[in-house]
């Protein structure tokens, strides 16, 4: 039997712990981003790193995403292991060429003679009324282009294990952390992301979804913040005698279709929940993947995602478009 872990960390502390460990062990790991040095990352993603490693390895950079994300690609191709941060994933737009056409493609275009062992960290998500340019997740946008591994931790435990794997991986990894889960004082997290975290180093493989709750009646497939909203919904559904299984994807690329299909073969009912836009995105992809593998096992399908509108500012409007536990509950009920 595994030893019991008592130490609990917030998601940001777990993420930083993995980065710090890798930086201690490998001088070639360094972090670049806006406000990552003295500030410690606007969302606490680098809290304390500058104090230990100094400005040379925890670098504040100009507001020049094209230059510093592209520089991360270049340094990675030289064999270093840069971590470069987009303060908000929404800012990807100004550097999309470097991300889409270099970071993601150089390995393949070189016939795997070049590797790009970098990590792109990015804060994602809404729920605090930051409006259309600071609230997106863009999971689908990053997972769409071939060539990047895309990971989304939902708890502190996952944040640490996925980060160790991301830094050690020889391929580019987009590590998308949800602001609402980090445990920041001014952006209180829900119950759930603060979990026991082992002191030692460990890696969580990409492409291994985690069944966060077992159930026989419906399968909720989701990621990030909505893992917790799905678990809340499942608890509430249990009072109505509906037993929902909750699958946390943990990575979009690679996608663990096997775990999803195994669950569908048990429940027959698929509910995909995503904080990204509904069309051409994660929900459609999961449904299509299950249909490819196990169409006969599918009895019903529901999608819960952002409707196809930019994320509005005012509280009642944002609440309308970002799925909550009630929306998930209703979707599961429709499958029964």
């Amino acid at each position, binding site marked *: 039997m595994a030893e019991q872990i008592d130490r609990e960390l917030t998601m940001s502390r777990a993420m930083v712990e993995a980065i710090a460990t890798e930086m201690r062990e490998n001088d070639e790991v360094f972090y670049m981003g*806006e*406000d990552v*040095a*003295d*500030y410690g990352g*606007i969302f606490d993603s680098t809290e304390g790193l500058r104090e230990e490693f100094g400005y040379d390895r925890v670098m*504040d*950079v*100009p*507001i*020049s*995403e*094209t*230059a510093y994300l592209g520089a991360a690609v270049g340094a990675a191709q030289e064999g270093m292991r840069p971590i470069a941060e987009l303060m908000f994933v*929404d*800012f990807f*737009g*100004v550097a999309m060429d470097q991300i889409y056409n270099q970071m993601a493609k150089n390995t393949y275009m070189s016939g795997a003679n070049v590797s790009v062992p970098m990590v792109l960290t990015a804060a994602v998500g809404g*729920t*605090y*009324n*930051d*409006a*259309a*340019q*600071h609230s997106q997740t863009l999971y689908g946008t990053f997972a769409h282009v071939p060539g990047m591994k895309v990971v989304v931790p939902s708890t502190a435990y996952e944040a640490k294990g996925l980060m160790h794997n991301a830094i050690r991986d020889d391929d580019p990894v987009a590590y998308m952390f949800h602001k609402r889960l980090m445990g920041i*004082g*001014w*952006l*209180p997290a829900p119950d759930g992301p603060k979990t026991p975290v082992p002191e030692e180093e460990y890696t969580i493989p990409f492409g291994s979804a985690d069944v966060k709750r077992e159930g026989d009646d419906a399968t909720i497939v989701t990621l990030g913040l909505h893992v917790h909203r799905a678990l809340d919904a499942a608890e509430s559904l249990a009072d109505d005698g509906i037993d929902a299984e909750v699958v946390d994807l943990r990575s979009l690329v690679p996608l663990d279709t096997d775990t999803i299909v195994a669950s569908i073969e048990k429940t027959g009912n698929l509910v995909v929940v995503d904080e990204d836009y509904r069309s051409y995105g994660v929900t459609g992809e999961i449904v299509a993947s299950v249909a490819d593998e196990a169409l006969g096992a599918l009895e019903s399908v529901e999608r819960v995602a952002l*409707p*196809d*509108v*930019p994320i*509005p*500012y*005012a*509280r*009642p*409007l*944002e*609440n*309308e*478009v970002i799925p909550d536990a009630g929306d998930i509950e209703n979707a599961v009920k429709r499958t029964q």
Partner: protein
Amino acid sequence: MVTPSELKQMYLDMATARHYEERLQEEYLEGKQPAFDISAGPIPGELHLAAGHEAAGAGVCQHLRDDDTVTAPHRPHHVAIAKGVDLKRMTAEIFGRETGLGKGKGGHMHLFDPEVSFACSGIIAEGCPPAVGAGLAAKKRNTDSVAVAYLGEGAIDQGAFLESLNFAAVQDLPVVFVIEDNDWAISMPKDRVTDVENGSDRAGGFDMPGRRVDVDDAVAVYDAAREAVGRARDRNGPTLLEIQVHRRMGHFMGDPETYRPEEDQDAAAGRDSIERLVEDLRAAGVDDAEVDDLRAQAEARVEEAIQWAKDQPEPDPAAAHDDMWINPGSGVTDTEPDFDLAGGDD
């Protein structure tokens, strides 16, 4: 030479802007304390206040007409006020109300008032290309309107800014780029991320004039902007202006500013362009009673706008799905013509 009535108008704009930011700070922090929670209270989300930037708004916009386009960044209120944006509807937008400029969809970083050709946006330097576009439209239509793009000193390393300088220069467009230099890009001091002391030096590489106003002085800004806006209006091409301003508050409300030396915060608080302008008003023969009266007018206008905004209804949640398109999804038609494409004589 600036006239007394122009001085008074600038003072009104600046006093309005300062009082507005101080009052928004109070309203914003309501319900968010003692433990700061960004998503609580009557004004949700991030709030970037511009106290200390007022001279850059008033001194430039004094030369602009309603048909002159202004784009502002994430710290927009002082510019919006100086440009004549509807203060009540702007405030309602910031409070997320149905009658706000964007019906509650945009928020404080995304204010649009086409009546006075004003827009702002949340991503660094992204207002520069649209200002160039407004200048391009003026050139193509042969009008004498101009465009002004505001940006912070942190934005001068962004590609969108540098590309815009070149495009405006090579096309000789009527655009004025205004850098508001408050010394800080959130927590990053200028010299850590930019290897030129003055952002206005960037102009030289693009064959356009660059001018820096070193002191937080509305009249000096007015003088520099008169030349730059005049140059644009007279079809003599773009100018890059840089104005030293000061950040009297955090980058956003709730910013602990632990990275910022106390002396720097004190220095910012001590440099007050509004007090400086009062001296200019006195020198121009405006007595203290009249200055007090102007300030009272400004404050009353702010209070009225805030009260009006708070009395406005919140949007209906279902409205989140509206306003996606101007035309229907099908475009300008929902019927396809019936051609006989296979037909023909040969």
